């Protein structure tokens, strides 16, 4: 693949910020959108905006076809066995909260265990804290190795016969680590627990096969994979979803409404109360088409290459601390770092002055920040439209940042 050519398909990347060409290195927060996605969303509003699953008019049928067509694209994209297992949500957060509020609250009791890891994003921490409080279950943390990876020995030692849920991120939004989800799922299942995967940083960057992983639930967001904000997916195995109660009640999700009792639609619609996120789902479908036209294996290889190049170039800067594995082989395109005693917010401001966008802060992972013994870090994250020149500019910017702060101090 040619990242320079791909970059041209993203109109937003063709602009100056603060007088310099934009270098966007914050795709782990949200990715940019290719013109095909923007046009597909716009086309829905311009040509066939209608509600879905109701009415018989032509536009309504078109909207329903495209909305359900997007569901089929998602099914293929994650290799789910049927569309009944693909629920549209607002994003990863809503997906995990749905598992917590529906499956977990109903099935957990006093003394049961939920296992997460120290690297989890807040959206895969707080729903479980709440479930633990509500049900009397115990929340346990998997420790991390020195380099931020998870060891399967630790998984075996932490997951017990009392564990009912294991919920782990596939790819870390801070350390860039790709976790051995398939092995963790096997250990969870050996102990009778269900495996929940936070796939927010995985779906955009590598080939996801939920059946091969044998996970029970998989959550991800559209906006990190070239799709619109406000759309995400909850995948669940059919036999689990069938026994779960909906979390949101109202229009769209009902079968029959009596005065005092109602029944639900079949899967997946029983979990989609209210008018769904129609434009978002259609946009996500277009994003999947786009990513597949390039190839997820190609994208993953490109990011590995960028990560390796960035690790090499950045570690040459005096005073640089890079968190996570030193080898690019275990990493996605995320590099989290600190630059001597310059605070990451200050790093981000100086880089921004040259049009370079990085993230600074706790990255919604405060337990991990405590584990790393830092209050904040800076993060550069790469995607299919980033090039080695972008990394060169980052490195130049960081050298400049260091010079600037050594002058003012």
């Amino acid at each position, binding site marked *: 693949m040619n990242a320079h050519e791909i970059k041209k398909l993203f109109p937003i990347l063709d602009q100056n910020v603060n007088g310099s060409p934009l270098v966007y290195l914050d795709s782990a927060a949200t990715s940019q959108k290719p013109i095909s996605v923007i046009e597909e969303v716009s086309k829905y509003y311009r040509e066939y905006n209608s509600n879905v699953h109701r009415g018989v008019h032509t536009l309504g049928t078109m909207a329903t076809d495209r909305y359900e067509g997007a569901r089929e694209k998602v099914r293929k994209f994650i290799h789910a066995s049927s569309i009944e297992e693909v629920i549209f949500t607002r994003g990863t957060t809503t997906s995990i909260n749905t598992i917590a509020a529906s499956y977990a609250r109903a099935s957990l009791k006093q003394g049961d265990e939920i296992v997460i890891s120290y690297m989890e994003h807040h959206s895969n921490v707080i729903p479980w804290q709440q479930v633990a409080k509500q049900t009397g279950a115990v929340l346990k943390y998997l420790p991390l190795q020195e380099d931020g990876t998870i060891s399967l020995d630790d998984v075996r030692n932490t997951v017990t016969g009392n564990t009912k849920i294991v919920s782990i991120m596939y790819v870390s939004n801070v350390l860039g680590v790709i976790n051995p989800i398939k092995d963790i799922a096997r250990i969870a299942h050996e102990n009778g627990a269900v495996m929940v995967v936070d796939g927010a940083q995985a779906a955009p960057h590598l080939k996801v096969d939920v059946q091969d992983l044998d996970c029970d639930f998989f959550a991800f967001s559209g906006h990190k994979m070239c799709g619109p904000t406000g759309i995400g997916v909850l995948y669940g195995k059919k036999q689990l979803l069938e026994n779960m109660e909906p979390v949101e009640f109202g229009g769209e999700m009902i079968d029959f409404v009596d005065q005092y009792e109602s029944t639900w639609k079949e899967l997946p619609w029983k979990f989609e109360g209210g008018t769904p996120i129609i434009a978002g789902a259609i946009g996500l479908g277009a994003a999947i088409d786009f990513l597949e036209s390039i190839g997820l294996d190609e994208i993953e290889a490109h990011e590995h290459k960028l990560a390796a190049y960035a690790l090499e170039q950045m570690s040459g800067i005096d005073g640089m601390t890079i968190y996570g594995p030193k080898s690019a082989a275990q990493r996605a395109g995320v590099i989290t770092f600190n630059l001597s005693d310059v605070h990451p917010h200050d790093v981000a401001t100086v880089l921004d002055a040259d049009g370079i966008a990085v993230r*600074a802060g706790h990255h919604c992972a405060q337990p991990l920040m405590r584990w790393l013994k830092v209050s904040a870090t800076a993060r550069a994250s790469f995607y299919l439209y980033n090039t080695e020149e972008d990394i060169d500019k980052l490195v130049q910017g960081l050298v400049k940042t260091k010079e600037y702060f050594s002058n003012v101090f």
Partner: protein
Amino acid sequence: MSFNNLDTLYRQVIMDHYKNPRNKGILDNGNLTVDMNNPTCGDRIRLTMNVDGGVVKDAKFEGEGCSISMSSASMMTQAVKGKDIDTALKLSSIFSEMMQGNEYDEDIDLGDIEALQGVSKFPARIKCATLAWKAMEKGLKETK
């Protein structure tokens, strides 16, 4: 953007307060403690004050954050020490106006605080600068 623009943000006096913070620590005789976080970036501050007879007798801060948030905390403690509650709150509202780039009462001598004026040109950093002031405001309003 060149370093010159950055210089409007990172003024010498700000860097001095960042490197050599005034009133850093926890007051032994404090009777007012306020903890405040900036949840979007992880900055946090613990402000202790000794307020007696409607006057801020002493103030100290401890925390973690960027140059802007920590220097602003240092300047704030310096500014409110010895002021009565109303004057301290007045300073806080002047500071807030300054951060939004609005006109403010220029008769009041703000001393070092004026150096933070440049922050108003960097919208993403305004919350850094106001953290300590919000903590002070919250604490003093509770005493009223």
